[in-house]
């Protein structure tokens, strides 16, 4: 299928376990995964996406600062010429146990196409991505 996704954990976040599992799951599902690992700045996501001509950026944030770290990513993608690139975010995106619909709304307003609550299994993201990229199973 040859679709490329950039995968990474944003900000000062060191949670590495989920990232390693997502890499494997998306690869097994046939995606070309460019895993930039933990502790990545917005710029690192963007340059990886440009370099590899990626179809989507999958952002993880586990440690709670996701809201601060993700803000402005959409605008920076636009400026960098990555117009309409798919942006997904998942993990434990905000500090504390909050009403999910509020969190989802805030991230969608930031320009994320899809936002996932804690503990979402990789398969859910894989199916959505296939759908959004028009890939048939």
């Amino acid at each position, binding site marked *: 299928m040859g679709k490329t996704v950039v995968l990474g954990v944003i900000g000062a976040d060191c949670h*590495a*376990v989920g990232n390693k599992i997502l890499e494997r799951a998306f690869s097994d599902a046939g995606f070309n995964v460019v895993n930039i690992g933990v502790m990545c700045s917005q710029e690192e996501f963007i340059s990886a996406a440009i370099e590899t001509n990626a179809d989507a950026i999958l952002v993880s944030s586990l440690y709670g600062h996701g809201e601060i770290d993700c803000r402005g990513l959409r605008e920076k993608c636009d400026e960098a010429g990555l117009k309409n690139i798919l942006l997904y975010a998942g993990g434990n995106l905000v500090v504390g146990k909050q009403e999910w619909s509020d969190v989802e709304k805030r991230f969608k307003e930031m320009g994320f196409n899809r936002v996932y609550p804690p*503990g979402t299994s990789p398969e859910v993201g894989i199916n959505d991505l296939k759908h959004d990229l028009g890939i048939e199973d």
Partner: protein
Amino acid sequence: MELKNKKWTEEEFFKVRQEVLNHWPTGKDVDLEKAAEYLKKVPEHKSFPAKLKKAKEEGITLAQPRAGVALIEDHINLLKYLQDVGEADLLPSTIDSYTRQNRYNECEIGLEESRKAGRSMLNGFPAVNHGVEGCKRVFEAVDLPLQARHGTPDARLLSEIIHASGWTSNEGGGISYNIPYAKSVSLEKSLLDWQYCDRLVGLYEEMGISINREPFGPLTGTLVPPSISNAVAIIEGLLAAEQGVKNITLGYGQCGNLVQDVAAMKALEEQANEYFKMYGYDVYLTTVFHQWMGGFPQDEAKAFGVISWGSATAALAGATKVIVKTPHEAVGIPTKEANAQGIKATKQTLNLLRGQRLPMSKELEEEIKLIKMETKCIIDKVFEVGKGDLAQGVVKAFEMGILDIPFAPSKYNAGRILPARDNNGAVRILEFGNIPFTQEIKDFHRKQLEERAKVEKREVGFQMVVDDIYAVGKGFLVGRPNM
């Protein structure tokens, strides 16, 4: 400065100190003399070493939560709540992730946004930004000993500030606060920076002030085999002792199988004391057991099950203290109420088991022997490749994969080791990378895993590891197929 396992001279220390105190404006308020005076007046019931010693002598296990929010008033309210309603025995201040990366500018943003939003936008307490004045306010508002808990590769300024504020314990170490917490900080740097933190505590000891140091036992918290974490804990204990630290708490993160966990705690305490003695250090040693550090179940009632099991193991192992999780673990930083519930569930279990220990059995004895043998294989090799210097040995050992921590984010970690559970849930090793075990030990691990594979009618392999990572979150210890 060249990295060596050798006590820093005062000259070396004070030269570096000048620079450290300039990292952020609050550094200039740290005055060693005034700090010593302040620390000398800390009453016994608010001193970490004193409270730990008392618990150890009485054979009880103390409960300590993790907790920290951005703003001082909120942080004080949180800690008082955990003390008064939660019945905590010891208090923490969990430090936020920007501070841990020395990004104090970003803490300022987080503080401002927290004020505006009316909720904490930081995942912990930014102690450096609050400075000695702010940290003292926290200390003076509570009635229990206070410890900084973080994950900071370079914690020099943080350590200066917290100790000067009466906080008598600091968690961390040059390995345990680097490899699981950072991506590209070299071990030379983090080991040197933690020698500084330890030397600071050593200096206070020389002034007659006892401060506790606690290397972070659980590392990545994810299926870390006991001998790996015990080896790191003992090494960090030895490195701290060389800098003059005299009160050390060594820790271990629950793996989940009772016999293995109790064995790991016993092996850790006995072997650490042997090493301290062998190298001529006079250390007062206590232990800490961490309730399950991996992925938690989202269901709160199920989370209490995990919390209580960890508490039971801590009691049966005779740990001096236990670090408590909360029913919100899988989702987010807990509310103060959820945090207090975790402590109360823990204390109830600890109290029910007070005085009981897991009796010695053949299985327990064998497991202790195995863990000690493995730990010795690793530590001996670290000394060997360091040509007798433990600090240099650590750097070399990580390069060579002799020390290798599963699932760690650091590029200085080989990441070749893969753990998986055996049929009883004990954590064994599937791929050893370059961990220097004897063939006999390796064969034993393999045999244990094969036994599980047979029961599950599948091959030993990576899928088992993935299943084990998810298992506790899904309500089980061992990740069986179709769980």
